[in-house]
């Protein structure tokens, strides 16, 4: 099993979720995060004084899925989340050693 962790633009969240749903990938977890990468911070102002917020709001989507489906899902995310502008985000893939469904106690494959 793998965990796909995609850091995307908050405004893209619903589009990505819909695309994932269409691709049969319904289960996921979403977290509001802030981040920085290539994208420079945004200049804000407060009482006439400018300051730079260098952590931009981003949204993290986590999906645990079987190895086989990994590439397909990555493609879906890349396609829907990209705007071709700096700040589109990244996808990270991690190994997962096990899954348990809390309700039933089922393990691994069955639990996904």
């Amino acid at each position, binding site marked *: 099993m793998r965990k796909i962790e995609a850091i995307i633009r908050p*405004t893209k*969240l619903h589009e990505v979720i819909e695309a994932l749903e269409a691709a049969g990938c319904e289960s996921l977890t979403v977290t509001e995060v802030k981040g920085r990468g290539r994208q420079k911070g945004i200049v804000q*102002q407060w009482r006439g004084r400018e300051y730079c917020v260098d952590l931009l*709001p981003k949204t993290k989507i986590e999906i645990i899925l079987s190895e086989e489906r990994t590439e397909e899902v990555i493609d879906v995310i890349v396609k829907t989340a990209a705007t071709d502008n700096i700040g589109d985000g990244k996808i990270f893939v991690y190994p997962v050693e096990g899954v348990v469904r809390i309700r039933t106690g089922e393990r691994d494959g069955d639990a996904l």
Partner: protein
Amino acid sequence: MTNKKKINEQIKSATLFLLVLSIVLMAFTAPASATTVDENAESIDNLATALTYVWLLLAGALVFLMHAGFSLVEIGLTRTKNTANILMKNFMTICLGVLVYWALGWGIMYGADAAGLIGIDQFFLKGADNAMWNSWFFQMVFAATGATIVSGAMAERTNFKAYLVYCAVMVGLIYPVYGHWVWSGADLSLLAGGDSFIVKAIGQGFHDFAGSGVVHSIGGYSALAGVIILGARIGKFKDGKPIAIPGHNLTFAFLGTLLLALGWIGFNSGSTLDGTDPFMNLVIVNTFIAAAASSVTVMLITWSKTGKPDPSLTANGFLAGLVAITASCGSVENWAAFVIGIIAGIVVYVGVMFNENVLKVDDPVGAISVHGYAGSWGLLSVGVFAVGAGNGILADAAYTAGGAGLIYGEVSQFLIQVVGMLLSIVWAFGISFIVFKIIDVVIGLRVSEEDEIMGLDMAEHGTRAYPEFIINK
């Protein structure tokens, strides 16, 4: 000198002495008291004037607070990312309201009449005295309200600069012109003056006590023009179907509604314009009965439709009741206020659904329905339920709808109300449509898609309203 003559002299001098004495005594008592009586009468007049000054200043203060109410309702029913922008728009509405109504609006509304259409002097309050300053303050806090209504309907996508320009036009021209027709008191004033051809033709003057038409309809139908030109917020309609875009803070929405209700006490009872008018009490009782009835009505409708009573529409319902009774509160009995309120509740609910489902216009706060549609109903309600001047409970009233309403078998008051209502729609929608179009061409009415998605707070003001809170977009 004969005895007789002497006696005659004596009698004469005694008579004269008594005469003089009489007059002196009179002078000492009666004339002295005569002066004082007149002085007292003058003091009483001054005191009555002073009471009116105090009354209108305090009523005006309550109306002023309505701007806080409008801001909070608008903020509460929209998203965090546009909050600072809405605050600024509503705040600038007050500032421009003061300055433009001082420079221009008051003169156009209450200056010397030209052809029943417009006032033409008293700009910059030229020649003002205490009474005029008093009136100006009370009228000024009203004036900015129209623009605020428009601001609400156009929230979350309107260019800030464009709004400021519109706001100035609203307070300086759109509002005061219609106001002149109804409230200027000029003999020729289009809708209410005794010498106006319309009033003559129908035989009754238009009655809009505190402004269901002058303030609310004008605001509401201007807003309609605005949102039509502006278009819906991104994401409001999907395949033509309206999508819910929840506001971010119901506490603000309700606090705002309560501040508006408070302001309405000044708005309606202050519109007696006379601190000694005892009918301000009837006005207020009617105001609250209508508002409560309307609010309960909307709650019950939403409860029956979705199984759950909807908070923000119920709050809208209260406001719709207030808007509707604003025209008729000084002309109807308590039970009629109750009925007017119930109908206002139906009007506002149907109006909100109609706007979204049929017209497909996007009005985040329901301003068009609350102020426009319920305002129109308020104008008509005078023609339906008015007791008529000199009748029943209003026998001694100094100011009320002249004719009785339809339910009492009279038609003329209803007719002039229809005319006044239609004129408010035509004028507000028409002129605002033109003004918005011009602004759209010259400045651009709507922000870019990118700015709208980012939120107007960052786009227009480079700031966020709640920078420390984690927001879930």
